[in-house]
């Protein structure tokens, strides 16, 4: 009788232990599972928002192209109009390629080192990259226009951009779409906080009338002699 009592008590306690352990484990699994699923759905939402925005922009481009096509079709008999239309398009491409000096509202980021802290090209590259991420439209470092093939290289205590020597402080100018300007500023202040850890003096300010010069036109910057166009 006594043996039976002890045995049953042991059995019940054992069962209780097992059940508590299972309960503990299942709570942990459930937690990690929901973290994973939340991550997954937040990734999906980011993708979805980006794709939707891409589609909106595509639609805008389609509308623009349709309008241009319409103009050419109706002006096909009128050479003067066609020339005017073509001229307008060529001007847009020149602006886009950095062949024109432009003015607009935007962000100015100036960087200098404090004491003997090393100011590296990667710091400037990261600022440029972050600015690009906020959809800026024109960039320059110390008034050297940044185009598709512009490099930023540190050589000793100075930088070369487009093959030209630049001395600190480095003033990075960016013209932004007015709609994006505020978000550009906000994101850039985050970048500034990171750069401060490298003992760099960084300032970000908004300005209404930034002038960004055209790319140097002496045949050394814009080169395409090794490219064969494919139709």
């Amino acid at each position, binding site marked *: 009788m006594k043996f039976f009592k002890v045995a049953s008590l042991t059995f019940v306690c054992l069962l209780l232990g097992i059940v508590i352990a299972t309960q503990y484990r299942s709570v942990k699994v459930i937690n990690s599972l929901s973290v994973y*699923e939340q991550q997954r759905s937040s990734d999906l939402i980011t993708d979805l928002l980006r794709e939707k925005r*891409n589609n909106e922009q595509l639609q805008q481009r389609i509308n623009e192209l349709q309008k241009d096509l319409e103009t050419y079709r109706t002006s096909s008999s009128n050479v003067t109009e066609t020339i005017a239309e073509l001229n307008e398009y060529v001007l847009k491409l020149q602006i886009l390629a950095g062949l024109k000096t432009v003015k607009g509202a935007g962000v100015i980021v100036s960087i200098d080192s404090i004491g003997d802290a090393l100011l590296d090209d990667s710091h400037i590259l990261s600022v440029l990259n972050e600015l690009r991420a906020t959809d800026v439209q024109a960039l320059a470092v110390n008034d050297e226009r940044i185009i598709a093939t512009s490099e930023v290289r540190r050589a000793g205590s100075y930088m*070369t951009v487009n093959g030209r020597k630049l001395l600190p402080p480095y003033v990075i100018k960016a013209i932004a779409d007015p709609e994006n300007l505020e978000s550009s500023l906000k994101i850039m202040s985050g970048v500034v906080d990171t750069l401060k850890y490298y003992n760099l003096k960084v300032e970000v300010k908004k300005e209404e009338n930034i002038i960004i010069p055209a790319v140097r036109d002496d045949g050394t910057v814009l080169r395409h002699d090794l490219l064969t166009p494919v139709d």
Partner: protein
Amino acid sequence: MATRSKSILFVIFLLFGMVITMQLRSILLAQQQKSKEQTSIQSLSTELEQVKTEGLELQENLRMLEEEMEEIIKRFDSGDNPTLNELVKTRKNMQLINGFTSVRGDGVVITLNDAPARTEVDPNELIIHDSDITAILNDLKAAGAQALAINDERIIATSKQLCTGPTILINKSRYPVPYIIKAIGDQEALYSALEQSESVFIMRIYNIRVDIRKEKDILVPRFKVYESIDKMISGMEVVDK
């Protein structure tokens, strides 16, 4: 004695009952939550697929319009108006400078792939970051590259390369590894710039697979103009010098 053991048993069974109820409830709750999240993930995935399909249709639509435009421009070129012929030529040249034209030429192709997973290292050091890509592009630009593309996304002045988790956002699309960078320019200069590149050296230390090859007649595709050109220059006003 009997009351003591009875009261012990009573407490144990009380606990037992509580724990079982808790377990049952948490399982029920978890299942509810899971099905709720799964349906939301499922509906998000379907919506994403739909939006992507729409995007492909829009791209096809745009492609046809672009072809039509080129046809019209070609007709202008065959006319006998010298101003018009000159303008068509300038337009072509501007398209080329902006990267709106696919180009061919000799150069180098770099393939980057994450290091094989090892347990003793911080996984963050085994993957390729946007700063690695930026550094390599910068080395290539310094060595005189005239046209650049990552995973066939043409790099223009305002192209972004952003790290978003294990993938990188280039221009408007997200790409997983491997990253294939194509550069047209002076082959020897590009190749030696990469071989001497500090960033390539460091990546190799971390076992990131960096493969550099010289190649002839590389095709670097054109920049896909997937947004309004007016919008791309909306903030800029031309200043006469």
